[in-house]
């Protein structure tokens, strides 16, 4: 068993455990913190896969910005632990059955249809990493320049939308 495989197994255990913790914890703040840990683990997976830029973007954008926004909203609403509402009795067993079916189907289809070839190559050395970063940015700003610009417009629209949605409505006739 190689070092890579051991690292992968430990990290995947952490990832699955934190995802379960997010699902099962009663307190929304604990859920958000479990999710931060999960995102960080996934960022380490990206490093193992030789994608340093995506790993850093994952940590800054997901674990940093997005989850801080979540925590802000949870604390703003005081929604740490909501009173339990009555739920439909058949909902949870049905959800369990459907999700197990989904997991089996997805794994089966991925493995049989995608027929992915071979192993993940070893993570690149430091010099190699910088090379790959340069190559990726060349691709991003040449071949994918238009999608990149469209993304910036999308972010602007989202910002305007968020401001419009949360703005206090001012009555004209008053």
């Amino acid at each position, binding site marked *: 068993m*190689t070092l890579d495989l051991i690292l992968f197994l430990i990290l995947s255990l952490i990832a699955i455990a934190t995802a379960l913790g997010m699902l099962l914890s009663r307190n929304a703040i604990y859920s958000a913190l479990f999710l931060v840990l999960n995102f960080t683990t996934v960022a380490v997976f990206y490093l193992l896969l030789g994608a340093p830029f995506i790993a850093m973007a994952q940590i800054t954008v997901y674990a940093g910005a997005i989850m801080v*926004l979540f925590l802000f909203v949870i604390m703003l609403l005081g929604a740490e632990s909501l009173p339990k509402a009555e739920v439909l009795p058949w909902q949870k067993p049905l959800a369990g059955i459907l999700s197990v079916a989904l997991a089996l189907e997805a794994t089966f289809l*991925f493995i049989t249809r995608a027929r992915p070839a071979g192993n993940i190559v070893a993570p690149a050395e430091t010099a190699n990493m910088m090379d790959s970063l340069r190559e990726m940015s060349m691709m991003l700003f040449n071949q994918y320049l238009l999608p990149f610009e469209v993304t910036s417009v999308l972010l602007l629209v989202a910002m305007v939308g968020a401001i419009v949605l949360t703005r206090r409505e001012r009555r004209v006739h008053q």
Partner: protein
Amino acid sequence: MVPINYYIILSAILFTLGVVGVLIRRNALIIFMSVELMLNAANLAMVAFSSVIQSFSGQIFVFFVIAVAAAEVAVGLALIVEIFKTKRSIDVDQMSSLKG
């Protein structure tokens, strides 16, 4: 060397946990977090594929997915705050009427 199948199985497991979260939890914020978990699982599969075929297209796509997720969270959380203001609750079972 880690076989790519392991990454794909992990991604499928994480995606399924996200689906379970959407199905069993009634707190809108937790449901939203589960959606983020699903996006992450898909991203993991995409980076794994891009690492196997030695191309950066998958990573660039993941970059765009992260940007779109950020936009989605900004608008979604604004909507949740607005719903909380009118309903005083973010239980999704309470949101059964079209008109607030």
